[in-house]
Every structure is written in structure tokens, then in C-alpha cells.
């Protein structure tokens, strides 16, 4: 590597970082607006035209806040934890292609690299929990570690199934392979597993018990303030964007579209926009889920992950591999996969506690009670 190459790489990496930060800022505003609409109110709409400048106001506020260090906290671990959470999330972006020609470094082992690096952020959460010298933080950190490590398994298995289907770990080749049918149609079970495990990896509702300790603040992030907390915040939104982008790349066809008459730079721009539109749809679904559902308790979360998602992901791999081994047509995967998806939903429904509301709560009429009372009084 000579100097111009290094400088070029450095420039591209900074551009990527800038792009990510911009996207994250837009996402914070988008989430607040989306949640507000679900809750029948407007989101932030004062700062700038319809609230566009709100993220910048937030960033400015967070950067100028005092960075508090608890007296008995372990200083080195406390300060390093945000970085340890942010860096692996950013390192993934090195190999993610956003359009046909837009990628920093297209690795042949792209998927493998992504799964390997993304696990490292768990350590950051543990460091935050331990270094805070706060019992709630420690409990939250341990819960986070348990949850994130457990949900890595279905996450990686779903990715593995895609790798088997596409016969490659190179992300560009995976997208090119979806020119005819997106993999979501071939592996609906895989899509469900990936999205659910991805939500759990993010630590988003309904899986956000680890940082909703006292039910709003907290968990490992409770002692952080100012710029250090903003790094955690950034990391969460960046990971949300990553999961959405991965969903689109692996399952929804990436930048493939039925009609692409252009060529050259225009095609790159068009495919990039189409890709971002698809990502925006997935992100909207993630926000929608957050606005509607309450959160699961940690043991229910773990039981869901281990008892439902892990077997489903193994079945998914086995199914894909056997269809490819016996060179059966690919629609077999679709049909059987849909069958298993239905079976998964059936098992979730069977263990459900929803029944007739009148089973437990009955309404007794006051006139009955008054009649009872007057009878008793006469007796």
C-alpha cells in the first residue's frame, strides 16, 4: 500500500463515517416523529422547518453537557465502554455495499466478517455495567450480556442459511443472486428469524428489558451523561440502520429492482435510492413495533429465544441445505419454509395466555347484590 492509496482509503472511511452520522441523526428525528404519529401527537416541530434541525440541537446539547464520572467508578473501563460499543458497529460498515459500485472493501468473507465483529459490542455493554459502580447498571449489564449472546445463535444461523442459499459469503454476490427472486420469498422463515433476532440484538422493544431497568432509565447506561452517553445513543441507531440494511441486502434484494433502464452513474444513484427506500420501509416497521408493544421480561425473552427461535433456525438451515444438496427446485424451500413459519406461529399461539376476557373477570349487577342484601336484612 503506497501513500495515495492510504490517503484515498482514509478519505473514503471518513466519508463513510460522515454518512453514517448523518443517517443516524436523521433516524433519531424519524423515530420521534414516527412514534409521535402512532401516539396521536406531532413530534418535534419547533426547531427548524417541521423540526428538521432537532437532531442538531440534541447533538449540541449532549456535547455541551457535563460528563459526570461517579466517584467509585473504574475510570478506564468507564471511559472506554462507549467506544467498545460503537467501534464494532462501525467496523461492520467497511464491507457493506450500498449500491452496485458503492462499497469500501468488498470482502469475500463479508458475512463471516460481519458476524464475527458484531459480537464484540457485547463486551462494551459489560464494561459499561461493571465500570459504573452501580448495582442497577451491573444487573442491566449482565442481563444484556445474557440476552445478546443468546440471540446471536439464531441471528448467525439465519445468516448462514442465506450463505448456503447463495453459495457465497460475498455480499455483492448475494445481492446479484437475488436478481430474479428476493431471498425473502425463498426463505420466509429465515426473514422472520433474522428480523426478530436482529431486534433482540439491538436491544429494542420488545426486547429492551436490559436498559429499561427501573422502567425508563438505565441498565448499563444509567451513569453516563453528555458526550459519552451520546456515543451509546449513536451506536444504538447505527446498529438499527445496520440491521435494516442487512435485512434488505440478504432478504429483500438489495438494490435489485424489476425495472432499471439506466446505466452508468445514473444507475448507481437510482439503485442507491431504491436501496435506501427499502431500508426506510424496514426501519419504519422497526419503529412501528416499538410504538405498539410492551416489553418482555428477561426470562420470557430467553425462553422465547432458546425454545422457539433456535430450533426454527436449525430447521431453516437443514431445509435449505437438503434442498440444495438434492438439487430440488427452490420453490420447495418456500413451501416448506412457509409451513414451518406457520408451525412457529402456531406454537407461539398455543402457549399464549390470551383467552376470553370474561374467563377471569365477570360483571355482577348491582341489582343482584341489592336484592341479596335486602333478603338478608329481612331474614
Amino acid at each position, binding site marked *: 500500500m503506497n501513500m495515495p492509496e492510504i490517503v484515498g482509503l482514509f478519505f473514503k472511511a471518513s466519508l463513510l463515517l460522515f454518512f453514517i452520522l448523518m443517517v443516524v441523526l436523521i433516524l433519531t428525528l424519524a423515530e420521534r416523529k414516527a412514534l409521535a404519529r402512532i401516539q*396521536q*401527537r406531532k413530534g418535534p416541530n419547533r426547531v427548524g422547518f417541521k423540526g428538521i434541525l432537532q437532531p442538531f440541537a440534541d447533538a449540541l446539547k449532549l456535547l455541551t453537557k457535563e460528563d459526570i464520572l461517579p466517584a467509585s467508578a473504574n475510570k478506564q473501563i468507564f471511559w472506554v465502554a462507549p467506544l467498545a460499543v460503537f467501534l464494532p458497529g462501525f467496523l461492520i460498515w467497511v464491507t457493506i455495499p450500498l449500491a452496485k459500485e458503492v462499497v469500501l472493501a468488498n470482502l469475500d468473507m463479508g458475512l463471516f466478517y460481519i458476524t464475527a465483529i458484531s459480537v464484540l459490542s457485547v463486551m462494551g455493554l459489560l464494561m459499561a455495567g461493571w465500570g459504573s459502580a452501580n448495582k442497577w447498571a451491573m444487573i442491566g449489564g449482565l442481563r444484556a450480556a445474557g440476552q445478546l449472546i443468546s440471540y446471536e445463535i439464531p441471528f448467525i444461523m439465519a445468516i448462514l442459511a442465506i450463505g448456503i442459499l447463495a453459495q457465497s459469503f460475498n455480499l455483492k454476490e448475494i445481492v446479484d443472486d437475488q436478481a430474479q427472486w428476493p431471498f425473502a420469498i425463498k426463505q420466509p422463515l429465515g426473514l422472520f428469524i433474522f428480523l426478530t433476532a436482529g431486534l433482540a440484538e439491538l436491544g429494542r*422493544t420488545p426486547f429492551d428489558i436490559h436498559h429499561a431497568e427501573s422502567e425508563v432509565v438505565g441498565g448499563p447506561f444509567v451513569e453516563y451523561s453528555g458526550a459519552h452517553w451520546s456515543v451509546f445513543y449513536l451506536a444504538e441507531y447505527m446498529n438499527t440502520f445496520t440491521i435494516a440494511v442487512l435485512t434488505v441486502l440478504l432478504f429483500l434484494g438489495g438494490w435489485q429492482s424489476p425495472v432499471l433502464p439506466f446505466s452508468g452513474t445514473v444507475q448507481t444513484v437510482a439503485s442507491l435510492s431504491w436501496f435506501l427506500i427499502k431500508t426506510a420501509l424496514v426501519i419504519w416497521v422497526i419503529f412501528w413495533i*416499538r410504538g405498539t*408493544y*410492551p416489553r418482555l421480561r428477561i426470562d420470557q425473552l430467553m425462553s422465547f429465544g432458546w425454545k422457539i427461535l433456535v430450533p426454527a433456525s436449525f430447521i431453516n438451515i437443514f431445509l435449505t441445505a437438503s434442498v440444495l444438496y438434492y438439487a430440488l427446485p427452490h420453490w420447495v424451500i418456500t413451501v416448506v419454509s412457509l409451513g414451518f413459519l406457520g408451525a412457529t406461529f402456531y406454537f407461539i399461539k398455543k402457549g399464549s395466555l390470551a383467552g376470553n376476557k370474561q374467563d377471569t373477570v*365477570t360483571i355482577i*349487577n*348491582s341489582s343482584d347484590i341489592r336484592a341479596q342484601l335486602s333478603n338478608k336484612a329481612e331474614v
Partner: protein
Amino acid sequence: MQVHQQVSEYSDAIDLMVNMGPQHPSTHGVFRLVIWVDGERIVKVEPHIGYLHRGSEKICESEQYSQIVTLFDRLDYVGNLNNELAFCLAVEKLTETVVPERAEYIRVILCELNRIASHMLFYGVYGLDVGATTPMLYGFRERERVQELFESVTGARMMHNYIRIGGVKEDVPDDFDKNVLILLDHLKRGVDECDRLLSQNEMFLARTKGVGIITGEDALDYGVTGPALRASGVIEDVRVTDPYSIYSRFDFGIPVGSNGDCWDRYYVRVEEMRESIKIVEQAISDIPDGDISAKVRRIIRPPVGEVFVRTESPRGDLGVFLVSDGSDKPYRVKVRPPSFANLQALEYMLEDTYIADAVLVLGSIDIIMGEVDR
């Protein structure tokens, strides 16, 4: 402060003590809960109250009777009108004042609307405890509608000081009937919407079914009353079994649960909102014309004696015990707060649950610290 050193039965470890301090985001007021946990299981619980103790009962002894109504407003600061009603009933019983019909109807309508507003607050805050942010907004929107009506009638959204000894303060505005009917329409749809959002949600059920169970006899032994008692299967509602004011004229249902867990306590309140709507409908169609207050002196001097009155506040059995010595200030006023007794049962309900359930069980009892501490 001594540290509770207890060896866990599962290992050589010492139980961890975590402190849900006086400030914590489950908005139930200033309440401190010290919990000893073994991993995720709760081993021992120690509640600390008294952060909001203002000596209300003692203050009452140096205020004239008509001034005490404002103090009672601030005890249960969510169900204000019900508190005012309890005190006014006590004084009226002692002085044998006959409240005119129109005033009684207005009182009942406002108290039932206040019950709906209080239960909407419970609904919103409980949704927030479970982790869903949306019920909060839905519940508070309905509550705002009710408070708008209150503002047009009493002049204030919360601390009304409207129900006075002998009747109510002043007559309702001309469009009161119309406004109440429009409000009931909105509320019916609002309650249905809130019900649809949360009640049968998978995750909500998973978190609240079977959690914090208390049986009917234990609940009664601990002095639990109100929706928490009805959810455990005991049919007891002061409005029906020991009627006061004009409640005996209305026909409404009493929701009674069977399991005594958090979901039952939550759903009993949702159904109670519907029943309160029925009461207001019946009241508003029958409301007569007439005086809105009996002729009472400006400075009330009840005869010597004592009286105990029970009413059904949104939280349970609110009792007022009044001792009068013939002067213009009471000799002793004692408030029997429902949340005080309900909170005692928290230790029992939290046996053998997870630490994440502590917040849910606390939320389902629906306490207001202003009432607990007085």
C-alpha cells in the same frame, strides 16, 4: 443503616440489596422500596413511606370546616372530587343536613367522571411500566377530555374545591348536559380503543398473568379494598353494599375477578370505567332542577359527636372519621386511606417473584402517595 446479611439457600452468596429509591421513574410518587435479590428472585422487601407526610390531619384541627375541603383535595390528588365528597358526607351526617337533589346528582356525575379520569391515569402509567409508551398518550388524552369538562364546571383541572358542605359551590354551566353527552361518547370509544391496544396483547399478558397473586381472604386480612380486592374475587363495593349519596338509584355492574393477579386488577379497572359511564348516563338523564346547596351557615358548628363515613374512591374504601367538640374547628379528623392498606399487601404479593415484576405489581395496586402519607 444495617446491611441485611443473609446467606442464600442456593449458594454461599449474600443476597444483593438494591434500592428502588424515592425517585424512580415508575410514577407512583415518592416511595422507597428496598429489595434483597438472589439473582433475579426477590427474597425480601422493605417498603419505606413517609416522604410526602404533610401532617394533613393535624392541620385540619386548626382550620374551619369549610377550609378543610381544600386539604382533602390534596390527599388523593388524582381522585379529588371523591375525597371532597367523603369529607362533606361526614359533616353532613353529623349536622343532619339534607342535600338538595340537584346537588346530589351533580356530585355523583362529577365523582364518576373523576373515577374514569383516575382509572385512565392508572391505565397510562401501567402501560408505561410494562414498557409500552403508547397507552400513556391514549390514556392521558381521554383524561384531558374529562379535565376540560371539569374546568368548565369547577374552574380548575385538578384541585377543584367544588363539593362543599351542604351541596356544591355553584351551578353547572348551561351547556353542561350537552357537553357531558358528547364527552361520554368520546369516552366510550376511548375506553374501547385503550382496551384493544393493551388488554389482549401477548406480551402484556405474559408479563401480568399469574404475577403478584393474592387470594381473597388474604387481601381482606391485609385490609385491601377497591379494585384490588374485587380482582381477588371478593364482591365488595361500598357504593352498593353500604350506599351513600344517591348511588342506590343507579343500576350498574361490579366487575369481579377470580385470579387476583395483575391482569385481573388491571382489567377490573378497565371494566369499571365502562360501568361509570353507565352511571353518568343514567344520572344525566334524570338530573332535576332546583337548589344546588342546602342552607348552611358560613361558619359551621356541628354538634358534639363523632361519625365514620365510608366511600368508594377509585382506589378503594376511603373512610373519614370526624370528632367534633361543638366548635367551628374539628377536634380530630382521621382519614382512612385505601392506598395505605393496599400498600401493606405489597410485601405479601412480592413473595417469590422476579425483580422486574416488582414494578408491575406496585403499579397494579394503583397507589397515590399523597394519600398514603397524608
